[in-house]
């Protein structure tokens, strides 16, 4: 009987508020160390926290988007531990009563099936600063710019049963927070970080002992770390050993996890309600105001794309995987052949972006140009094949679609006389093949199309070319 993996994820999402969660320092990334600090986030004696209302609204937006209950009264608590980049000696977090209660996320897996993953809770907390080891020999530098940045920690149920399900969950969550505009989701800068709880069991048996893997800042690392952990735990279990409950760190360079601390070494955080902050009480009307301001969410958008554009589920899923891509598509497809637009975006555009490592947000081809390109196909200025050539130029160098078509002389030849001339030349050059064709070798038709298209440098209108060629070949010489 084989092993079943059980996975739950804890995701820390940095909320994209202008200022920190308990003071008015900016949250901008990349400033000179300790520039964005004040008595509050430096934890000077006597400084007190004041909750940022924008962070609260972003947490509410998330809760509403996953269908969760929003707790009308939640409590900030202190999580006590010493660390040099934790200025107060405690982190302000939410412990017993978080702002967001139970919710769920609907995943579409690679094989097209759907799966619901439960969300246990989501709570507001502050980020710590950073310890800098590189620039100092035998010393540690402390940068507190990040200290006090608002985080939403989203905890899932242990509902995932494979690394790919975990990745699908994380991607869906990532898309969602960006849809909601509550986080920039930048994984390199640490705005979206993931810890994974992984255990093995025989199907149907109770959950096994889990290991918590920290520091998973990419989808690929998440997949690799779980795969590694599955093998490690399987080896232990099959050799008669026991998995130890512990925290493990993923080493991206070696592709392995290693022990950080065991359960016995775990801190006793001595949580208690923070007496500096009153309970967070939310009026129903306020929650409704946030609900009214929610954007269209991915699942609803996908449904609309299927209905309004007549797209298949797969296409609608891909195109709504990010809000930016969906918005891009809607600009391009407006009034045009929706399926043509979908094919171009999913194939050519995403392919090119993928090859260049760019995101749709930084796409070098503006949606308006992409739209114009497809218009030129539809109005037969250029053929689909030539359009790919124009697209390459557009992607690499920019400029206007019509300018490229003109400059490169790519306009489609639609003059029947001109096409007939091209065909006559081809036929004249290949009398033998003409004779064979007329003797019944139908397959040669394609040969003539190719030759004529080549002679037009690909610009001949394909339908016209076909029609005239057939006329010429079929008429007795």
């Amino acid at each position: 009987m084989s092993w079943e993996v059980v996975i739950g994820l804890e995701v820390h999402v940095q909320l994209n508020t202008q200022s920190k969660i308990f003071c008015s320092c900016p949250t901008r990334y990349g400033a000179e160390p300790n520039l964005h600090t004040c008595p509050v986030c430096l934890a000077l004696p006597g400084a007190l926290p004041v909750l940022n209302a924008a962070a609260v609204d972003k947490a509410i937006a998330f809760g509403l988007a996953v269908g969760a209950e929003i707790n009308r009264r939640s409590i900030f608590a202190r999580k006590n531990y010493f660390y040099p980049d934790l200025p107060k000696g405690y982190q302000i977090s939410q412990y017993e009563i978080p702002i967001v209660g139970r919710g769920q996320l609907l995943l579409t897996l690679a094989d097209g099936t759907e799966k619901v993953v439960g969300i246990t809770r989501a709570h507001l907390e502050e980020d710590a600063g950073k310890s800098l080891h590189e620039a100092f020999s035998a010393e540690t530098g402390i940068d507190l710019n990040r200290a006090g940045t608002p985080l939403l920690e989203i905890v899932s149920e242990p509902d995932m049963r494979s690394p790919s399900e975990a990745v699908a969950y994380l991607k869906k969550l990532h898309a969602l927070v960006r849809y909601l505009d509550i986080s920039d989701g930048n994984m390199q800068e640490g705005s979206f970080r993931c810890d994974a709880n992984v255990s093995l069991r025989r199907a149907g048996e109770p959950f096994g002992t889990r290991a918590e893997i920290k520091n998973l800042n990419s989808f690929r690392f998440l997949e690799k770390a779980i795969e590694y952990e599955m093998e490690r735990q399987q080896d232990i279990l099959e050799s008669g050993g026991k998995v130890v409950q512990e925290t493990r760190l993923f080493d991206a360079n070696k592709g392995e996890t290693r022990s950080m601390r065991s359960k016995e070494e775990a801190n006793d955080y001595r949580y208690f309600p923070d007496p500096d902050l009153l309970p967070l009480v939310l009026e129903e009307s306020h929650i409704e105001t946030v609900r009214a301001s929610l954007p269209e969410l991915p699942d609803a958008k996908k449904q609309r794309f299927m209905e309004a554009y007549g797209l298949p589920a797969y296409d609608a899923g891909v195109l709504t995987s990010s809000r930016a891509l969906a918005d891009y598509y809607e600009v391009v497809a407006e009034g045009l052949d929706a399926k043509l637009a979908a094919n171009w975006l999913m194939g050519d555009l995403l392919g090119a972006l993928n090859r260049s490592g760019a995101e749709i947000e930084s796409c070098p081809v503006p949606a308006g140009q992409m739209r114009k390109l497809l218009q030129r196909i539809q109005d037969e200025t250029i053929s689909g094949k030539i359009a790919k050539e124009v697209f390459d130029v557009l992607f690499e160098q920019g400029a206007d679609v019509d300018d490229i078509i003109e400059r490169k002389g790519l306009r489609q030849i639609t003059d029947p006389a001109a096409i007939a001339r091209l065909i006559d030349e081809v036929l004249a050059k290949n009398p033998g093949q003409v004779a064979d064709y007329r003797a019944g070798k139908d397959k040669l038709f394609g040969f003539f199309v190719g030759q004529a298209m080549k002679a037009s440098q690909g610009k001949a209108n394909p339908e016209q070319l076909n029609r005239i060629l057939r006329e010429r070949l079929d008429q007795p010489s």
Partner: protein
Amino acid sequence: MELHDHGLADLRRLLQKKEISAVELTTHFLQRIRSVDPQLRSFITLNGENALVQAHRADRQRADGSTQALLGLPIAHKDIFSTRGLRTTCGSRMLENYIPPFDATVVERLEQAGTVLLGKLNMDEFAMGSSNETSHYGAVRNPWDTRMVPGGSSGGSAAAVAARLVPAATGTDTGGSIRQPAAFCGITGLKPTYGRVSRYGMIAFASSLDQAGPMARSAEDCALLMDAMAGHDPRDSTSHPQAAGQFSAALDRPVRGLRIGVAEEFFADGLDSQIAEQVRAAIAQLESLGARIVPVHLPHNAVAVSAYYVLAPAEASSNLARFDGVRYGHRSQHADNLQELYQQSRFEGFGAEVRRRILIGSYVLSAGYYDAYYLKAQKVRSLIREDFRRAFAEVDLIVGPTTPTPAFALDAKTEDPVSMYLADIYTIAVNLAGIPALNLPCGFTREGLPIGMQLMGNYFADELLLAVGHAYQQATSWHLQRPDLAEVQG
């Protein structure tokens, strides 16, 4: 009568009539501090030069027609309030060299009212103590008898006001730290309703209990300070939106018709008989002013000290975690790694009483003990609140002794923390409930030590407390008595 014998309100009138200048006043008090304080040690840091700059400015502003409420009046702050550019030690070695880059709201508000800051006053380390003996900067002496403690933790404030080194001072009260030293030193001190005075910039001991308040010669003087100190502060989330008040304006409210509760729980075993006698006499005095005396019950007062010594250390253990030797404060030179840096810096920087309370607090919050201690103490806290709620349905004020004994001798209780903790047996319930309470001098022991009575009021009854205190002081002269202190060459 010398200049320093006037209270704040008197000096204000003299300044307003331009009979004295702020510079004269400041110079006089600085001189008096230099000559008298060496035997008391009530100041940790003097703000001499800067105080004169402020006084000159005040005189100029008055000449320009400024009518700021407290313009030119010298005060001093307990060394728990952050003062921009002026060392703030909190009575600890940990902060021996700490100079805050910002002002506490209380400091800011009193400065905006025109006060001149003479210096920073001694206190028990991190406000943890009832005798001022835990200060790293030396024990403060009681001006009425320098062999005695002044009480704590605002012992420096109480001693300095009693010794006429400053007409008024700020203090903070977590379990009695304004009222108990006020009682021991024979001055008037108000612990306001929790949330009326901002805690921003006040170094936290136990955040849910800490409250800043005025310490002065009279209720009238305290009201003057409260007019400036109280008010909503958006930087303190526990500050009440309606914190501001008209304290001086409410002073003339009559006592007649008020229902004053007396809780026999406050007159039980352990109360010094002379205190009992004097406080009962004071109650009779209030009755003669027209108050109606009504018996009330505060059945859970007996367990207040126990609950307090769970909750206050719990909050303190977390509040004091920021003193880690990393960013500011004492950093040990004997540490080879991070763990040692924390351990040594905190061991060297904190005194024994602070370390004891951090230990207690960490213990009661630990996994497995939280429910038995912290949660249970919170339940007791609710019961105490309920006691007061029930009592204040029947009466306007409750009166009793402030302390079970008069000032005790230095070193008498330092070896026995529990006996020291019991010095706050009558004051602690007030902090747990968050209600206001006022100490009023109401007599002396045969040995010449001051006796204080405590008036407790319902939430936001601060104005009423001061009005009753004012009426009592109009009818009595206990608050006008002054200790006999020799001036020495400082």
